[in-house]
């Protein structure tokens, strides 16, 4: 299926585990920059090469329905305190440019996940400044999984 670049005013939704969420007195205020690092190789998986997520605008409906659909399409077992972060594609690329790291945000429909999307170009050796910029400036919304259903 064809791979297309996601438009700058559209969005990429990524799953983050509870262990990478910053809460102040129980209220979610941000995620750790490490949430945007590529996962290192493990016994079960190889080195992650792209950040995976789903294409928000692929789904119809209002904002709540789109986030709910995103939750269903992300193929990871989610825990109630995990979160989904909605990021703007243009802002993602802009943070990459600040660090001279070209990032691409693409919609890559797969047979079992037609909304699959990815961020390409993240360095394998984590760039803390880039991850910090993504966390601060590209994330528009954070939704706890338990609040979505």
């Amino acid at each position, binding site marked *: 299926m064809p791979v297309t670049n996601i438009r700058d005013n559209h969005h990429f939704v990524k799953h983050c*585990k*509870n*262990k*990478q*969420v*910053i*809460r*102040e007195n129980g209220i979610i*205020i*941000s995620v*750790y*920059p*490490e949430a945007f*690092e590529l*996962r*290192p190789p*493990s016994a*079960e998986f190889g080195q992650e090469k792209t950040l995976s997520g789903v294409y928000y605008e692929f789904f119809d409906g209002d904002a709540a329905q789109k986030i709910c659909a995103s939750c269903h399409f992300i193929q990871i*077992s989610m*825990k*109630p*305190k*995990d979160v989904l972060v909605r990021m703007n594609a243009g802002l993602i690329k802009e943070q990459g440019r600040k660090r001279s790291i070209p990032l691409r945000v693409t919609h890559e429909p797969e047979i079992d996940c037609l909304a699959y999307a990815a961020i390409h170009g993240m360095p394998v050796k*984590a760039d*803390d*400044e880039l*991850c*910090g*910029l993504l*966390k*601060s*400036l590209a994330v528009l919304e954070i939704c706890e999984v338990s609040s979505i259903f």
Partner: protein
Amino acid sequence: MIGAFQGTFPASSANFVNIGPIGDDLITKQREKIASLSAKLQQQFSEQQQILLGSRTPQTITRLAPQESSFEERLFGSLASLKIAVSQYAMHLSSDERHRIFEQLDFLINVDDWHEEDNLPKPQSFMDFLKLMIYSKYFRWTSIGVSHEGNLLVAWKTDRVLLTANFADQDTVRWTAQISSENGEMGHAAGKCSLRLFSEQALFYLRPGDRNAGNKY
């Protein structure tokens, strides 16, 4: 994990040694859990595997075979090891602070919320965080997390700054800072340094102009 307690733990009445500083912090349920896990481990080691050798006179040799612990046991062991680490620094941490750390650890590391395939927090990384608090005398952390590798992540938030730290291996801290000005302008910084230097760097952001004053939290 169990060796650190150096005690016997019958299921009904648990005895604890060397956990004095955190003894009061462990709730009854945790004590019973430690006792039952210990009893289980003791049983595992006593049920020695027997191997019959095909010699003229049959002999039996025995060996201890490490058994894979369940997800729940590994999680509990990790949590207990972190809490025991707190006990090593108990004299520098108030009871309130210890309870706040324990609550955050319980919130983070539990069967309902932890992904089984993830690396558990590294005790050394956690101890580096405790050392940092003691070096800097700044106890107002906001949130605790864990990286892919099992490094401890900590965030501090003030009115103008969101500081995050990744307590990486070998006494190294990777940090990021998000600073907001009064007129809404935002700046960012990131760095990597030793634990000792980070204790100064952190105060630069968290307590500007007051870097040497003690913390009264």
